[in-house]
């Protein structure tokens, strides 16, 4: 088990998750300047909606080495272990955000918890598509695309991370993305078949 923890770098990942979650809570309402290129103005997207992408990067990066050929002969059920660890990390980080949202009446943080699950799902789905080493970039790219193209008083369904806290579709999209990522993206055989990346 110690080798597993070392291979997944869970100490460093946990540290990064804690730091970014604390920053998300502290800067929840601060508008991140997102440029509006043509208008010469900069529109603010609340940090609570986009910073969880950083947490997602840390969580997805933990599994960058998963599925290497050497793990194909492991006695332990590593894929199941990966799924369990991933779920625990997402639940802990989202739970912390939700807890603060409820206690301090900050609904933005509840949307942040939703987006965290969704961004992790995007990163995990990217694993078999882009390779485990490139996958951690996917949540960042998704957050940037959403920030640049999704600015609107009523963001379209494609830009669900920017929709209101109570938006049912956004919640469903984030949940479905997270489930698909955990089920497919962390599938052990899929990564073994593709090797350890390009």
């Amino acid at each position, binding site marked *: 088990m110690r080798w597993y923890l070392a291979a997944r770098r869970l100490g460093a990942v946990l540290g990064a998750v804690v730091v970014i979650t604390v920053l998300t809570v502290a800067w929840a309402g601060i508008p991140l300047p997102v*440029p509006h290129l043509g208008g010469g103005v900069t529109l603010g997207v609340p940090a609570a909606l986009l910073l969880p992408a950083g947490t997602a990067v840390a969580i997805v990066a933990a599994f960058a080495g998963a599925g290497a050929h050497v793990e194909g002969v492991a006695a332990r059920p590593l894929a199941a272990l990966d799924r369990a660890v991933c779920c625990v990390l997402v639940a802990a980080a989202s739970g912390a955000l939700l807890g603060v949202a409820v206690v301090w009446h900050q609904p933005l943080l509840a949307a942040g918890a939703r987006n965290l699950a969704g961004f992790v799902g995007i990163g995990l789905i990217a694993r078999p598509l882009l390779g485990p080493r490139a996958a951690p970039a996917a949540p960042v790219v998704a957050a940037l695309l959403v920030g640049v193209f999704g600015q609107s008083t009523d963001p379209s369904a494609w830009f669900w991370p920017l929709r209101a806290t109570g938006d049912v579709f956004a919640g469903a999209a984030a949940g479905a993305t997270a489930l698909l990522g955990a089920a497919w993206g962390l599938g052990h055989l899929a990564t073994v078949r593709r090797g350890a990346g390009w």
Partner: protein
Amino acid sequence: MRFGARWVASGAWWMLPVCMGLGVAILLVDGSVFDPSAASTATLGSSSVVVIAPVVAGGAVWSTGQLRRAGWWRRASARRSLGVVADLLWPHVLCGAAGLAASLATAMATYGVWRLPDPRPVVAALAMVVAAAVSGAALGRLVREVVALPVAIGGWYYVLAFPPALEPTWLRHLVVVRDCCLVGRSLDTSVVVAVVATAVAVTGASLGLLVPVTQHPAARLAGPLVAVLALAAAVGLVHARDADPTSPRRGELTCSGDEGRIRLCVWPEHAAELARLERVVTPALRAVAAETGVPAPTVLTQDEQADQDAGERFFAARPTDSDDDLERLGGAAAFPTLSATCVHELEAAGRGDGPVPPEAASALYEAQYVGMLWWTTRTVLAASDLPLSRGPGEARALAGSDPPPSFSHVWDADADGQARWLSAVTDAVLACDPNLVPGGER
């Protein structure tokens, strides 16, 4: 390595559609220019570097990361590192350039500007693409991809996107060329040089990290030195600027009208509209002169440096303006504005640094706009068949804030009173003398 093999091995084959797609998409979502021209469409097209450079940096991380995983950097090699790095990076730079080209073509097609774009914003954007590629390569060599990729992509995006939101406002001139240009303004080359210098600084610092000291000791030392010098030069070039990267345009204007009549002078891009301008604007100027006694200008020009004392007045108009808009703009241009020297003196007076009392300076500063607001409000009310009693409310809507207190005073006066006040203020503005403003001597 052959062109095709390098192209495929670098991953550029999938980066190319991403760069080109982003370059087009960002303009379709965000792109707009006020005055379509070779300079403004080139600036708009080049602004897509904000989303293209992160992709290039990510690709470069991946390419050098492959060598890092293979342990190439630690092995003895017959090839020089710089040669290998150049061989690795050119496909990524090419992808970035193709993305910028797609973006430029989109900007030109959107505004129908089919002439060679101003090369300066394009050169600045290309320099940033090269800097993104080299810095991404350095990051990919030093750090694992799982960290380097998100940092390179997110970092480059925010390096290029954040400065326009930061104070001091000149910081934006270090990374991108933007907000260029109205037809009467021209892009300052110093801003372009500053962006290129910043790109050189990033490239130099990255090369210092990228090459092994055993192979290129001079480059390893020269890189940071070049970075510091280039960054200092960039800051030196733009630190005194405000947010505007432009200066008044110089050059020949196209004029109409005979001696003795009001001449209209426009920049060549607007020459086709000269007849319409003359048909709409000249009667408006004569109407202002007839109602207020403020003399009609001898020349109405798009040159910002109009000689007001010689009877020239500046006006801003675009071919897309309607006849109603042109009537408003043209008539308002009959009233002179304070010269830059005068504004400087009034600002000093406002700080208590001159012989003029701050209140008087403020009164003259505000009064320069009252004539324009008076004419604009009148034409808007007349076009909408609204009563004159709606004047102050309409003026507030037009100005976007409460009009100067003297506006209501002028609006409520009879025709003679209005003419006297506006004529007196015109003289005060031209002479930069607050004492000539009715009530300004207090």
